[in-house]
């Protein structure tokens, strides 16, 4: 069953189309990466999935039903713009948010303590939010999104503000949630985390889905035209012509893109060894980062 099904959804703000005929299906139990440049319309789409906005055209199904306000209790949302009541203490705040998701006070209290313990933040139970560090309030915010054990979680930039250790902790928790059958929509600009965690992605630009599907399949569908080399000698001496483009270059290392598809690997090696002593030659599939940049650029034209 698809947990989320978006069918030809369009949303206007005045004359501006924030979502333009979007269709998307997200099956149960996966991590779906929602990608796109700033202002692409991700937040608008998320707000429609959380029943904050209503689509002007098309429809949104969650858990197989047309979305309505009762579904809000089964959805957890960590917005990109974080917010808590500054003068409330951590536990009261979490209990309040839990109650607004339909939990009983007692249940919310128990779950809040459970999560604070799991996130190594139990000492902060009675602290006021204004006295917390940024990382700590991020944890509280995350708990607010998962406290009511929702089937669907939408996490917008969940790692911002975390040090590498905490980031690892959160990756582990999110993967655990997936293992227990939850569906997660992850919106982030951290492409290496997308590679590490996401099963599927959709790429949005200017209100349209420009690329969607399984991460492995998307990668396969892109031509292997990335070249990593290590060498001795001066790269400037090589006449790369129209055959190659430099992506990045440092002392004795370069990342290149093969721009002439007719060129065979052996011919490339010949071209390079003419001036350089090669110590490494590797043709690799593109990263999600490159796919992102390339797709967005192409859709622009």
């Amino acid at each position, binding site marked *: 069953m698809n947990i989320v099904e978006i069918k030809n959804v369009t949303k206007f703000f005045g004359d501006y189309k924030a979502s333009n005929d979007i269709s998307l299906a997200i099956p149960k139990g996966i991590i779906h990466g929602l990608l796109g440049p700033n202002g692409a319309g991700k937040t608008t789409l998320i*707000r429609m999935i*959380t029943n*904050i906005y209503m689509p002007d055209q098309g429809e949104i199904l969650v858990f197989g039903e047309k979305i309505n306000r009762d579904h809000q209790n089964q959805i957890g*949302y960590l*917005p990109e713009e*974080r917010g*808590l009541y500054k003068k409330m203490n951590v536990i009261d705040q979490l209990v309040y948010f839990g109650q*607004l998701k*339909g939990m009983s006070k007692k249940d919310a209290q128990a779950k809040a303590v459970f999560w604070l313990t799991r996130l190594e933040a139990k000492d902060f139970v009675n602290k006021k939010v204004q006295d917390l560090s940024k990382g700590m309030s991020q944890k509280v915010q995350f708990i607010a999104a998962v406290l009511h054990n929702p089937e669907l979680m939408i996490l917008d930039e969940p790692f911002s503000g975390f040090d590498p250790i905490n980031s690892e902790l959160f990756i582990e928790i999110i993967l655990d949630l997936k293992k227990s059958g939850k569906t997660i929509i992850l919106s982030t600009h951290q492409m290496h985390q997308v590679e590490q965690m996401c099963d599927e992605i959709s790429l949005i630009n200017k209100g349209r889905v420009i690329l969607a599907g399984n991460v492995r399949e998307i990668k396969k569908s892109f031509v292997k035209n990335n070249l990593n080399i290590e060498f001795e000698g001066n790269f400037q001496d090589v006449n790369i012509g129209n055959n190659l483009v430099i992506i990045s270059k440092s002392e004795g290392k370069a990342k290149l893109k093969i721009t002439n598809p007719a060129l065979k690997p052996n011919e490339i090696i010949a071209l390079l060894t003419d001036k350089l002593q090669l110590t490494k030659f590797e043709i690799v599939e593109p990263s999600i980062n490159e796919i992102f940049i390339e797709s967005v650029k192409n859709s622009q034209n």
Partner: protein
Amino acid sequence: MANSKIWTIINHEYLKRVKSKGFIIGTLIGPLSFILFFAIIIAVSMSMGESSKKLAILDNTNILADNLIKANKDIYFKVNKSEAELSKEVLADNLDGFVVLNKEALDNAKVTVYTKGGGGLGFINQLENDLDKVLREYRMAETKVDKTLLARINLNVKLETKKINESGKTEKDNAEGMSFVGYILGFAIYILTFLYGSFVSRGVIEEKVNRIMEILASSVTPFEMMIGKVVGIGFVGLTQVAVWMVMLFGVMAVATPLVMTFDKSFNKAEIQKIENLQQMNKMPMQSGNQAMSPQAKSFIENIPKISIWVGVAFVFYFFMGYFFYASLFAAIGSAVDTEQDAAQLQLPITLPIILTITTMPQIMGQPDSTFSIFMSLFPFSSPITMITRVAATSVPLWQIAASVIILLTSTVGAIWFAAKIYRVGILMTGKKPTFKDLLKWAKSN
């Protein structure tokens, strides 16, 4: 389900505020500052006619000066200097001015006063009144009018108002006292509506600025959010009013017996006499009240008897007025990012309240005029003016019914209108909207 979420919000908004130090301090200090405020108004209005100025009297008639000084010895004093000397003193600020009384004053009541200029209307009036009185008495004496006759002519009217009640008896009508009570109650509703209305808009802005809105919006509907906040804060207001009422009744309960005991101890001898008389005449013992001195009796009679209906009307008009205005305040809070921006947009709402409070003296003075009736029906002013009329006069039932119906309908309309703006406003950030934008939002679906 939906209802339980509204209750969760009401509970949250209520407890958060009632538990705060600000609320406890405000509840205790509120009545004190209210009393102080009215004490200042009364003190100022009583001292209006009085002038703290010093005027020298240069009396060339040798008749009037003493009488004038008798009329007000704080202001006038006699001098024996030339006009030129006095002028110098006025210019040197040693003297506020001087009055020259010549034969002309006696003949055709013409008097000249010299000052540095200005001084205000109150001071001129005072001088004129005093001179009028002194000169009139002089002219009366001149024509040999009898002293007792003079006293009788100068007698001022003391009007006693009696109210006829349904059983046909008359009771003391405290028209002046009651319209003052009405004014205070109307003023209290004005202050409370403004105060709690601004709590609502501040609360909404806080949730917007701290980016809590998006979490709330993903859990409850904007309508639930708004109603929960408005009702929660309204209960805070009711709690405060209830505490104040208990305090007021407490003070009255203590004050009345206190007046009686003090009175008794001062008049023990007198009471003894009365009791002896009663014993001698074998009259049945009467209640303790009868034994009160006339002064104490009039004191207690002068405490206006506030009927329970005035209390009911106060709570109703406070709550409805609050709802009417607070929902509009919520809408404006939702549309802006800072309180400064809110202040500008609030003008169309605050203007009617301020206009209402400035017309209060007229409503107090003529509670049955067409203007007063209109103001007590118009929903923007009725919460403040109707309570004043209810206290000050007997308002016909149809007017109360009409006012209640109009206010209820308008409040439902205001909530509906505000909810439409609120729904759009809460997630809008950055651009400062105009009042026109708000109307556009209200029209959108």
